[in-house]
């Protein structure tokens, strides 16, 4: 029992990543502010990075390189996402997803 707590193995990292991913997912589903939804998606991407790094301990450097690419992609996505958010805000003056309702059914 004590050994499981003191010795940190790959599985622990995977569990933390899974929890982080779930927190992000629940946030995307329940939050109403676009900015916070956006941050929750970033949280999910961090969970993926943590996973890749943990697996790198088993399989070698591939995972770490992949994580670098994901970090770069997250930055590109953030830039585009904020641009779209600003364009939307100029038209509707709101960032609440409940009011994103021009197009439905």
């Amino acid at each position, binding site marked *: 029992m004590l050994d499981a707590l003191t010795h940190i193995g790959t599985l622990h990292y995977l569990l933390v990543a899974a929890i982080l991913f779930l927190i992000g997912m629940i946030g995307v589903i329940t939050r109403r502010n676009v900015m916070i*939804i956006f941050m929750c998606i970033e949280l999910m991407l961090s969970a*993926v990075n943590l996973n890749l790094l943990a697996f790198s301990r088993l*399989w070698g450097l*591939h995972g770490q390189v992949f994580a670098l690419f994901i970090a770069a992609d997250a930055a590109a996505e953030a830039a585009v996402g904020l*641009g779209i958010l600003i364009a*939307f805000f100029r*038209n509707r003056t709101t960032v609440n997803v409940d009011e994103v309702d021009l197009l439905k059914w």
Partner: protein
Amino acid sequence: MPPSSTDYVRILPEIVLAVWGMAVMFAEPLLGPHTSRKGLGVFAALGCLLALGATVFQAQPAYAGFGFYNMLRVDHFSVFFHCVVILVALSTTLMSLDYLPAHKIDKGEYYALILLGAVGMCLMSSAVELVLIFIALEISSIASYILAGFRRHSAESTESAMKYFLLGSFATAFFLYGVALLFGATGSTNVFRIAEVLNTSAHIEPLAYIAVALIFTGLGFKVACAPFHIWTPDVYEGAPSPVVAFMSTAPKAAAFAVLIRLVIDTASPNWFWVIWVAAVLSMSVGNLGAILQSNIKRMLAYSSIAHAGYLMVAFASASNRELGISAAMFYSAAYAAMNVGAFAVISHMAGSHERFSSIDDYAGLGRRSPALAAALTFFLLSLIGIPITGGFFAKFYVFSAALRTHLIWLTLIGLVNSGMGSYYYLRVIVKMYMNEPRTTAPVPPVRLGVGLAIAISLIATLWLGVWPNAILHYTQGAPTILAGK
């Protein structure tokens, strides 16, 4: 060891598209604020033609095989999807030449984004390395997010971009999580190595099952198959019509290519029932949803969900590799041809601020503009699957592949759905020819750009419907060389 010159030939179409895209970006600020950007559009169309030439050059047997240290692979499969994507990009560029000034969004970035998005889609079809697949997927997605919101002073367009962006990056996160788990379960990021591990090891890690489910969630979003289709109608309704022509066909074809390479070709565990259920759901949801629509773009959005379902039927029969995969490839090409054509007509009819996008606005088009009405009728008949159109043979090959792999129920459900689908396409045709026009205002004359785009789609649809053998023969060469068999 530096990459050889053969390696560069293997990404030659991508190089051409990327260089052209960046050249358009650099030229854009040099033009004055009131200069027309049509020249840039023509320049971009030229780039597409060159990239098409590069693909043909690359198709020589000497260049087939792996390139860039097993990152990508040039084969029948990749060359086929390159041609589809580049032709769609070309038609979209041509139909945008007059659309952009009419909607006061005449900006050079638009053409650059189409070209750069096409780079991502081309790479998706040739990538065999998870990292490259992911990067290519993101290049294509990010370009599509921006294009969807390109009418940035319109609330509808920005709303559609925002919905697309939020749900798209949400789906990407699932895809990535799946990819990470697949790496963990197999110890490799190379598709062929993964296939080897999954096929040879006696015990498959439970992680691999979760990974396949997550990857399918992410890709299912990109191809708009049910139950991941919710975004499609909203995004297609709000986005500019030429952009919808682009993103309802090219990224979809590319995502199907990834699906084939990553899920079906690696013989991932348990993919069959997932695909089966997705096929039935997509066909039913798409066709039932389309019947209720009054906006033509929204109707075609639901129809694109239904068509993703028919494609899934082809995938479900991929246990017979030759039949299933070649039917899927043929279907994605035929769908691209007819859908781009339909949206070319719609983008011409849209009017300023996309006012005329209700089905009622098409009433009496047969008298107001016989040529446009005839073209739209032809594309709609092809979407139904009437003989001498590409849509007929596409459906025929898909359902015969399903029958030959003994998927009787799936075929039956598909045929019932096809019948249901013909109702809403025919409704538009009836409106065009049998109802009185709503306005007497003349339809604006068809300019060269839109005309060429319609002509390309028309020829492609007709060609696939009358002489399908050459294309079919080519697609049948693809599955045998996938997975190194």
